[in-house]
Structure formats: C-alpha cells, structure tokens
C-alpha cells in the first residue's frame, strides 16, 4: 500500500471505518491509485481491497466521469469537494447511474493527500420509478401525463432554480419535491419540509429564520431555523399559497440575497438553500386577489410542475390499487387480496377528489373490513357506494371538469363529498371497532392524534356529539 498519510491511512482502522459507511467508497492517493475500498464498492465492481489496491482509480470504478482523471485532479488541486453525476459499469455489466462525491483528504501538509470518492446509486431511487416496486417511496405512474412529470424531474434536478409544484391535494407534491432534491447535486444534504399553512405567522417566522437568545420571552437559547438547517440542501415550502403576506416579503428578500437576519439578531446569516414550493391553490388567482405577492410568485415560478389529478391519469388508478393492495396485504395478514370486477368498476368510476391519498385510504379500509380474499362491492365504504354513479355516467362526469373551477383546485362538490366520505369512513370504522379509537386509528392508517383531530373536525367527539346532536 502506498504510504500516503499515516493519519488517514492507518490500514488497521481504515477498512472497518469505510465498511461502516452505507455507500460504496474508494480512497485514492495523489497519483489516483487506489488505497482502500469498502465492501460495498467491492460488491459493485467485483474488486476487493487486495485486487483494487494500487490500481488506477478509473480502472476500478469504470465510470463515465473519469476523463483520464481530469476531474479527480481538479479536486486535488483546488482542495474543494465536488459532486458529479455519471454512471459506472458494475460487475454484472450493468450501467448504473451514480452520484459521485469527491472530497479531498488532508494529511499533515497543506495539500490534499488524496481523495475519498463516495458513490450514491441514483438508479435505485424512486423518482423515475417505472415499476411498481412496492416501496412506499416510489412514485407510481404509467400514464402519459405522469411520464411527462417523470421526464421533467431530472431536468429540474439539474438546475438550481426555484421550483413551484402545483396540483390538487393528495397528488404527491411532497414526493415529487423530494425526488427532485434526491436527484440533484444537493442530494447528500438536508431536505427540509415546512408547511406554511400549518403555523401562525409569528411561529412560522421563527421556524423559518430562527431567532437569537433573548429575542422574545421564552427564547432562552439560539434557534437556527429551517433555512440554516437546510444549508447546502433544499427547503421545501409546502402550502406556500397560505403563507402570510409579511413573511412573503422576508422570503422574497432571502431568495434574492441569500441572506437574512434571524429574529432579534443583528448579524446577517448567509445561506445556500434551494427552494421548492408547492401549493394546491391557484396562486395566480391569489395574486389577483392581493393575497400573494406577484414578485414572489414570479420568483418561485421559475420552473413549474403541475401534477395531474388521479382522474386524469388513465390506467394509473388500477396500477395504484394493486400497489396499495400489496402494501396493506403485507402489513396485515400477508394474504393476497383482489377486488372483484364489480368493486373495481365502482372504484374506476369514482373521481377521487382526494386523489391518491383517498384511494390509499379506501384500499386500506377495504383490506381491513373485508374478511374474504376477494373484496366485493359490499366491502367498499358505503359513502362511495351511495355516491358512485353508474359507470357510464361516471365516465362522463370524470371527463367534464366543474364549470368555473380552476383545474388545479378540487371542485367544491368534490371537497364536500370527500368530507362526507371521510366522516362515514370514521363512523364505519369506529362501529367496527366498537368505539375503540386506538384500533380505529390503526385500521384507518392514522395516528391517534390525527384521528382525534378529525373526530373534532367532524364533530364526532363525545362533547361536540352531545352538544351538536346530529353533528
């Protein structure tokens, strides 16, 4: 083994150290000769520590980024880490898309003693999921509209520009945002999500920008805030349409200058954060109504991605039904379940105003309610049956958007219907569990707190129930 630096290449410790890293890793010296590889890299390339040691790094990695070692030498000379995307040819002759993080290793001298190259397999990530992997993180979609979305993800991942994701509730905006981050050069860095509609203005400001000790009563220590926590990574602002106007000004200022004052602070904090925003609201309408700043809208809307509602995704509903059936079957008895033809017909005819979230809940409900292997119409939520029109009529309804309603917003009738469905779903489940809320929460796939919140929302808590009577 070449004697590169006694600090980093203590050969007794190094292999153990590298094996603890959950990614393929190779360490090279200044001549780009391999000093150490971990077991994950061995699994990938077929070359273990003894085989690879002393070989030129390109020969071991078989990567597309090599370019006769130019990029590696650049990192050695500059002393600055780089993240690049490329591919490698694995031991099984498969081409695998990888993200390479090249970081200089400093020994005793000022100059880097070598490099540590960490590989991250992008081909196994969910963003381009073109198959039903069964993974909860996979984004499932075969329809032409979703394929267009999948095509845009890598393009959006390649830039640093802000992204605005729109789409009805339950269409998967969060997953798409995460997929963009995971495929970007910021992938190894934090991805932090904050819901701008869930917090009051003052709390949202402190959550986003942090505060210094003594800024207000109760500020007993410095709080970094989401912007600082996302340093180098991506900040995902969901429900941006609900952000209070005063905070919109501050956000715009951060986006322009990449710096801000924390609450009560006198020193500006510089940040390098990419912004992805999402909303189910038609932002242009909110701009026209004076509820959203036009300049912030244009600042966020550099790249725009609209997610189609489930009713416009052709065959995806069937695909998602199968996916959720498998997911819940695995979580419950493990018994494979299917929908009968009649039940499927009802499901296919339903417009799913709550989109994938609603479909998921319905499938989970059915899996838990139905004792048989085949889920029939009688096992579907009664609200769905009561509402579901005849298949022919339903098709006509699905293809006709509600008049006067923005296509990016669920129509009012659908929203009301979803609340009705949800209420009935809760009542049916509580009936089934004889009022046992813990069991009902498990069946519904919610936390107890969520169930409690929804019970209150629907006036189903004992107090409101007594007061409201028929609430």
């Amino acid at each position, binding site marked *: 083994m*070449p004697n590169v630096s006694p600090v980093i290449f203590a050969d007794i410790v190094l292999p153990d150290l590298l094996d603890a890293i959950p990614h393929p890793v190779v360490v090279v010296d200044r001549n780009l*000769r391999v000093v150490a590889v971990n077991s994950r890299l061995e699994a990938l390339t*077929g*070359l273990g520590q003894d*085989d690879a040691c*002393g*070989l*030129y790094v*390109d*020969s*071991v*990695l*078989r*990567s*597309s980024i*090599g370019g*006769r070692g130019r990029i590696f030498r650049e990192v050695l000379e500059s002393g600055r880490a780089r993240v690049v995307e490329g591919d*490698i*040819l694995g031991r*099984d*002759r*498969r*081409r695998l898309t990888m993200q390479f993080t090249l970081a200089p290793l400093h020994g005793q001298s000022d100059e880097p003693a070598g490099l540590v190259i960490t590989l991250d397999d992008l081909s196994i990530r969910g963003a381009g999921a073109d198959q039903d992997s069964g993974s909860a993180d996979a984004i499932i979609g075969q329809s032409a509209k979703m394929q267009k979305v999948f095509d845009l993800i890598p393009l959006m991942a390649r830039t640093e520009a802000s992204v605005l994701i729109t789409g009805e509730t339950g269409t998967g905006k969060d997953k798409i945002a995460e997929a963009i981050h995971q495929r970007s050069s910021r992938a190894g860095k934090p991805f932090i999500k904050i819901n701008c509609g869930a917090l009051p203005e003052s709390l949202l400001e402190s959550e986003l920008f942090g505060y210094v000790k003594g800024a207000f009563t109760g500020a007993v220590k410095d709080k970094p805030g989401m912007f600082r926590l996302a340093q180098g990574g991506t900040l995902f602002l969901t429900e941006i349409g609900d952000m209070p106007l005063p905070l919109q000004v501050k956000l715009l200022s951060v986006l322009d200058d990449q710096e801000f004052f924390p609450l009560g602070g006198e020193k500006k904090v510089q940040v390098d954060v990419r912004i992805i925003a999402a909303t189910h609201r038609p932002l242009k309408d909110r701009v026209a109504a004076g509820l959203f700043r036009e300049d912030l809208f244009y600042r966020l809307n550099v790249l725009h991605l609209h997610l189609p509602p489930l009713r416009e995704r052709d065959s995806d509903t069937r695909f998602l039904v199968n996916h959720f059936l498998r997911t819940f079957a695995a979580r419950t008895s493990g018994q494979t379940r299917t929908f009968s033809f009649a039940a499927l017909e009802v499901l296919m005819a339903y417009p799913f105003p709550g989109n994938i979230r609603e479909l998921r809940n319905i499938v989970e409900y059915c899996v838990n309610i139905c004792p048989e292997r085949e889920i029939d119409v009688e096992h579907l939520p009664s609200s769905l049956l009561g509402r579901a029109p005849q298949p022919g009529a339903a098709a006509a309804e699905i293809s006709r958007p509600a008049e006067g309603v923005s296509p990016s917003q669920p129509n009012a009738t659908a929203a009301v219907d979803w609340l009705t469905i949800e209420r009935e779903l809760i009542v049916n489940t509580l009936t089934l569990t004889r009022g046992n809320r813990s069991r009902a929460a498990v069946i519904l796939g919610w936390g107890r707190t969520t169930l409690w919140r929804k019970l209150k929302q629907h006036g189903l808590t004992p107090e409101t129930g007594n007061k409201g009577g028929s609430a």
Partner: protein
Amino acid sequence: MNILITVQDHSVAPRFDQATEVLIATGEAGRLDGQVRTIILPHRSAEDLSDLIVKEDIDCLVCGGIEDSFYRFFKWKKIRVYDGVIGAHAEALSLVLSGELRPGMVLDSARAGV
C-alpha cells in the same frame, strides 16, 4: 486470429463505450502476424465501435468494462470477449496471443510504478 483491444494511453481502456482508440492485431500461438494497427475513433460510441469490430472481422475482443447488451451481441457473433481486463495493452496482447489471458484479469503492469 484477429484481435482488437480498446486502449487508453498505454492501458486497456477502462470502459468499452468510452474508448476512442483501438489496437488491431493478427496472430496466434504467441506470435504476431504483421503489424499492429492503431485506429483513432472520431468520437466515443459503443455502437460505432461494435460496427468496426464486425467490419474488421475480429475474433477476439479485449476490453475493460462492457455493457451486457454489447457483450451478448459479441457472444452471439461468436467473438471471444475478454472483458474487465486491467493493465497495459501490450501485456494484454502478449497474454491473449499465448492463450493465458482471462476475463477480469488484473495484469502485473497494472500496478507498475506503485
């Protein structure tokens, strides 16, 4: 036997699809027949390189990593493929002529100068 080796500088190119230079030699039983030709390719292309291999009536390909689809294509064409070879192309040529080369072989020259 016609032999083609994908090369990068003095070594077998790490990847078939990234190679921009090839050596073509004819020989058997440890000796060369005629000159070794070098061809510089206009650009990196596994497709173009495959066309060249077929056009040159190559019997034996020596390369670094190669994608499975190309590997299977050459097998189907009855071309012997020694892939995953690491080391100097001169040593690889010598070993293939003597029948000692194996796929995935790390040659002595690969660690020369360490």
